[in-house]
């Protein structure tokens, strides 16, 4: 097993491509060094260092089958993420990872899979979608319900449009408000849950988004008949070390970095409703 110094020391990766997703949101493709293959499971994250500024946990948002290309989608909210989001091709990035518990993609085989994403929460769910679609016949209905602020903040838009043309996935996108040129849904993402086609007795839900949105999504999934054992969510509270040394991301009895970020809802029982923890 790696010792503390190893897991805390970043490797160097280089930015290969940078794409704008929305206002303040950028996707970076990183190369992990010559010939390095990088295996990760959907839902996992890396600790990325913007040199001279600091380190932040950023989910892997790319296809787990593409081992040499590490994709991260970053919203510039503070010093580290703003610096990372400004990096361009050839710039170095410190990289530790991958860390964290993954979405239960294997467990979901034979079940309907309902993905409920809010805002940037679609980023850690995209690798799960790649996996589900790559092995589509192993799953029942696959449903993606995605809510975001406005049409120009929809992430991965071209990909969503491509997936929409497939007949084997139901995709509904809703925004909080829109102008007259938007033909899609307007309203909160939880409104889409009662209308989605899945069998609650044989379904697994994967939920990621702002905590308030997740609380309401869980309530709507329960109302639709799903048990807490079938609901999985990713908790993206702030963390520092990512290897359960520092306690920064402690959430009641759990460490998000060691036990999460993906949790089964029944294992978090009650914690989500607590205000300060």
């Amino acid at each position, binding site marked *: 097993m790696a010792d503390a110094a190893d897991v805390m020391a970043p490797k160097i990766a280089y930015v290969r491509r940078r794409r704008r997703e929305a206002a303040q949101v950028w996707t970076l493709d990183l190369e992990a060094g010559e010939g390095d293959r990088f295996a990760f499971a959907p839902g996992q994250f890396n600790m990325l260092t913007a040199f001279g500024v600091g380190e932040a946990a950023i989910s892997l948002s790319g296809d787990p089958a593409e081992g040499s290309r590490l994709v991260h989608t970053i919203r510039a909210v503070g010093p580290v993420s703003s610096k990372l989001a400004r990096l361009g091709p050839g710039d170095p990035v410190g990289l530790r990872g991958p860390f964290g518990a993954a979405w239960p993609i294997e467990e979901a085989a034979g079940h309907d899979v309902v993905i409920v994403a*809010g805002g940037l929460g679609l980023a850690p769910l995209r690798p799960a979608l790649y996996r589900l679609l790559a092995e589509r016949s192993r799953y029942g209905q696959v449903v993606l319900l995605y809510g975001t602020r406005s049409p120009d903040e929809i992430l991965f838009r071209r990909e969503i449009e491509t997936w929409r043309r497939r007949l084997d996935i139901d995709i509904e996108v809703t925004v909080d*408000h829109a102008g*007259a040129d938007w033909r899609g849904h*307007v309203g909160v993402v939880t409104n889409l849950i009662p209308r989605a086609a899945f069998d609650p007795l044989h379904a697994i839900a994967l939920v990621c*988004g702002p905590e308030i949105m997740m609380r309401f999504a869980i309530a709507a999934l329960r109302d639709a008949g799903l048990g807490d054992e079938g609901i999985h969510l990713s908790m993206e509270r702030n963390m520092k070390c990512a290897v359960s040394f520092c306690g920064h991301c402690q959430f009641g009895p759990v460490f998000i970095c060691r036990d999460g970020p993906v949790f089964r809802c029944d294992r978090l029982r009650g914690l989500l409703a607590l205000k300060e923890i």
Partner: protein
Amino acid sequence: MEGLEQVIREHAFFAGLDEGFCTLISGCARNVRFEAGQYLFHEGEPADQFYLIRHGRVSLGITAPGRGAVSFQTLGEGEIVGVSWLIPPYRWSYDAKALELTRAIAIDATCLRQKCEADHHLGYDMMKRFMAVLIQRLQATRLQILDVYGSHG
């Protein structure tokens, strides 16, 4: 009338409706259809009817100076358009526009209000059904106001 009664009974909003109430409501109902882009009603107009959507989609919005029409909710099959008909001043506070060909049942609000006054059991049933919609929309509005997807999200 038979056809309308059946549509009302089978509409999700009226799930479990008492047979007698269904007949009373049907007496105030008619079939309507809106082409894409056509308005069901405009902000400020009297709320003299409401709609049960059978097929299609309707956008609720408010026109804001400099921003044009801002949609805050879309509604579809099995949902209800219009809650302002039940309580004074019976006036729409937003625009409702069909986004695509929409078929609906329009219920005459004056007619149904009179029946609710005459039969408070019917009135209470209507109140409970519309209150559920109002609470759900209030909660949705709260989330929208919190702007949960903002950078503090």
